[in-house]
């Protein structure tokens, strides 16, 4: 007991000093003192969870049907482009029904060549030896492309990583906000945005796929057929965005939104909100050529399979700049511009969980949480003092050091404090003194049994440690399981519990032991008042 070597005293003191130092930035955050904190000292701070800081938490899930649909569409474009190349292979009756892409090859002698060229298009999947599409021939002239399971998994993975970046760009075009956008599992994205006043706006931004396409209007289509939803070969029927019926357009995409470099909200000559877009070089060239070839004909501006408008091409548009008109408000035009500029979502995302907390509730919670923590701590300290006297004082000093250490460790790891985390903090305060209670009760017992003072203290610490250790392991087991299964706030609670277990064993056992050893060495007491 008395052998508490000097170097150990130094190490324990150093840990305590560092704990206090690292916890200060979190404690003075938001006060005027924060600006006076010297810059060469640590600045790591505990971040506040959304339930305390206010903000929105959204869990998005990829729409599997839409993912397949978009993948088939992209494949259709790819196949058409490939087969149009020299030597050209004429195809028809393209269908994407049943989750597979199929088409007829007009000249039966070209079937093998078509299959050959399409097989080359498919990508090998790493390690498996399989490819991402199966190319088959049925009825001699019909070529069928079937997505393989491995290909679908990889496509979803790629789509999710693109979607994550797109979501981030949409929410935070400037890249300046402290937002969290991470993929979770195979098909989910978690979005956390602090301080959002209007989550609906946020969801609208994310909810739009923003697939922009320019296609020629099919003028030969029979209007009666179009209203029935039937289109001539090579065309498709799409609804108008404003709900005013439907229109037949050529399946072939003239230019797509992938070729945009800029999109911004503006106004047309009549002062109505519209969107100005700028194509990249390739897109501008293509757009120029197509408009040149089709002067006088209408083309459709299509957003997510809905026709925004179908203006006439009055003259070739050569500069690579265009306006999208439609029935927009300033807000919706602006949202669409942001969505277009950030690129299209490779898959539609559905919001499956939303939690939004207003900033005032968070402030209330912090305020009440801090008061409860302080009163709870003081209550426990008074109780310890009147129960154990000097040893209670040591336990109380350990308690305060423990509070600093928990904050410091959280700050160093940049952990997030949530509302349940505050409860975890208070619980830790209540439970941390258990170690001291165990030790002190054991010392009392050993003294009753007639042991000498130093012997009693030593036995007390030694015998109590076993139970302290086992009890804390059970805490860690439950907290670790909570951290693994829990989400957001609950995980925050578990993190505080785990940190608290480790720091409290240090303060309640080693730190108080040092205090007791130093006291005994200094004063050589004859009797113990405990």
């Amino acid at each position, binding site marked *: 007991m008395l052998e508490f070597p000097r170097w150990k005293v130094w190490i324990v003191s150093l840990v305590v000093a560092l704990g206090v130092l690292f916890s200060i930035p979190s404690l003075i955050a938001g006060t005027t003192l924060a600006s006076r904190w010297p810059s060469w000292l640590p600045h790591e701070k505990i971040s506040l969870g959304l339930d305390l800081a206010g903000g929105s938490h959204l869990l998005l899930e990829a729409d599997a049907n839409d993912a397949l649909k978009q993948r088939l569409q992209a494949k259709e474009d790819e196949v058409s482009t490939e087969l149009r190349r020299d030597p050209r292979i004429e195809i028809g009756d393209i269908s994407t029904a049943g989750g597979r892409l199929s088409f007829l090859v007009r000249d039966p002698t070209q079937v093998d060549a078509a299959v050959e060229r399409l097989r080359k298009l498919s990508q090998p999947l790493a390690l498996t030896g399989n490819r991402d599409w199966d190319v088959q021939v049925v009825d001699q002239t019909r070529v069928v492309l079937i997505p393989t399971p491995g290909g679908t998994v990889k496509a979803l993975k790629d789509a999710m990583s693109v979607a994550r970046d797109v979501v981030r760009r949409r929410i935070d075009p400037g890249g300046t906000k402290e937002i969290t956008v991470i993929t979770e599992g195979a098909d989910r994205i978690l979005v956390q945005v602090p301080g959002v006043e209007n989550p609906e706006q946020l969801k609208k931004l994310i909810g739009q796929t923003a697939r922009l396409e320019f296609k020629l209007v099919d003028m030969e289509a029979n209007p009666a057929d179009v209203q029935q939803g039937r289109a001539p070969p090579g065309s498709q029927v799409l609804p108008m965005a404003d709900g005013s019926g439907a229109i037949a357009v050529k399946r072939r995409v003239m230019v797509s939104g992938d070729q945009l470099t800029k999109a911004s909200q503006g106004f047309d000559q009549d002062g109505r909100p519209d969107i100005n877009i700028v194509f990249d070089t390739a897109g501008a060239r293509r757009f120029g050529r197509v408009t040149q070839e089709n002067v006088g004909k209408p083309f459709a501006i299509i957003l997510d399979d809905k026709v925004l408008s179908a203006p006439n091409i009055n003259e070739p548009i050569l500069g690579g700049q265009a306006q999208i008109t439609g029935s927009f408000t300033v807000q919706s035009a602006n949202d669409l511009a942001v969505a277009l500029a950030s690129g299209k979502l490779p898959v539609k995302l559905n919001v*499956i969980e939303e939690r939004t907390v207003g900033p*005032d*509730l968070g402030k209330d919670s912090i305020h009440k949480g801090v008061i409860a923590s302080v009163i709870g701590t003081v209550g426990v300290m008074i109780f310890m003092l009147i129960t154990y006297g000097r040893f209670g004082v040591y336990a109380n000093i350990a308690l305060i050091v423990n509070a600093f250490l928990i904050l410091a460790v959280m700050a160093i790891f940049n952990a997030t404090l949530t509302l349940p985390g505050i409860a975890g903090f208070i619980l830790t305060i*209540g439970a941390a003194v258990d170690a001291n209670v165990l030790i002190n009760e054991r010392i*009392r017992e050993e003294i009753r049994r007639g042991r000498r003072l130093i012997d009693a203290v030593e036995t007390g610490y030694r015998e109590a440690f076993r139970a302290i250790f*086992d009890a804390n392991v059970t805490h860690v087991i439950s907290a670790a399981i909570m951290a693994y299964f829990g989400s957001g706030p609950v995980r925050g609670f578990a993190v505080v519990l785990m940190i608290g277990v480790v720091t409290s064993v240090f303060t309640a056992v080693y730190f108080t032991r040092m205090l007791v050893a130093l006291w005994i060495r200094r004063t050589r007491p004859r009797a113990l008042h405990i």
Partner: protein
Amino acid sequence: MKLLKLVPENTNVDFMRWRNLAVVLSSLLTIASLAFTAYRGLNLGVDFVGGQMIRVTFAQPIDVEQLRGRVLGLHLGEASIQEFGGPKSYQIRLPKPEGGDAAANAAATQVKQLVTASYPGARVDSVETVSGKVSEELADDGAKAIGLAMLGIAVYIWFRFEWQFGVGALLTLAHDVSMTLGFFAFTRLQVDLNVVAAILTIVGYSLNDTVVIYDRIREDLRKYRKMAILPLLNLSLNETLARTVVTSLTVLIALGVLMAIGPEVIFGLAIAIFLGVLIGTYSSIYISAPVLVWLKVTPDSFLKTDEEEKAGTQPA
């Protein structure tokens, strides 16, 4: 200074005298809790059944019936309105909207507009929308986590002590968790994610007392090899009684303050842990210990392979 001694020195309470009565009573209460929970069900929050919950704080106390009428007037399905924390704070719960995202959005917006238009100064504190899929996963994860935590801890106790102690720990945990569930079923307090966190905490902390008492029983078993099991359990319980009382009190002081003046959102969490500590203190004496009698724990339960025997701790 005269120090406080809540438990006098050298107590000699014959705890085990009432053990059969206590075990019968506890078993009945446990079964009753489970049956009641199964029969009446828990008041599950949107976390576990899906739907929307909007929390609003009004500038002054309001007429709930009027608010209920107004919300029902929006035709958003079975809306329920509950006071939350104080006379000015309410939570409005709506069922899962049928039309997916867009409908959920619209419903929340409608309620928000209604509240801000009809009640000047009202503040929308939070909006939570949980889809059926997520709520099922959360419920599933919650149940799994509680089960795993109980098993994990029982296995740890088995490794550290002997199998009889592991069984005792598991039964104690089952008792504590069932009683807590029964309490929530009885009071109709809302069960949300925080309450699951609380139950996991109880799993970790209610066993605190059990671990301490088991540690002492093991020590006494080695020390007094000739003593019969009942007096030995009584001795161990009495030796640790002061510690049991003092620790439970410190935890209850801290949690009591949190319950009384802490943030409303975590009231459920605070009361669940508070209760769990109370139940855990009782069960550590009347479940954990009697189980050892039935499972016939003797000093020989600890085999020579025990590390401390190797280290040469002298059995008396």
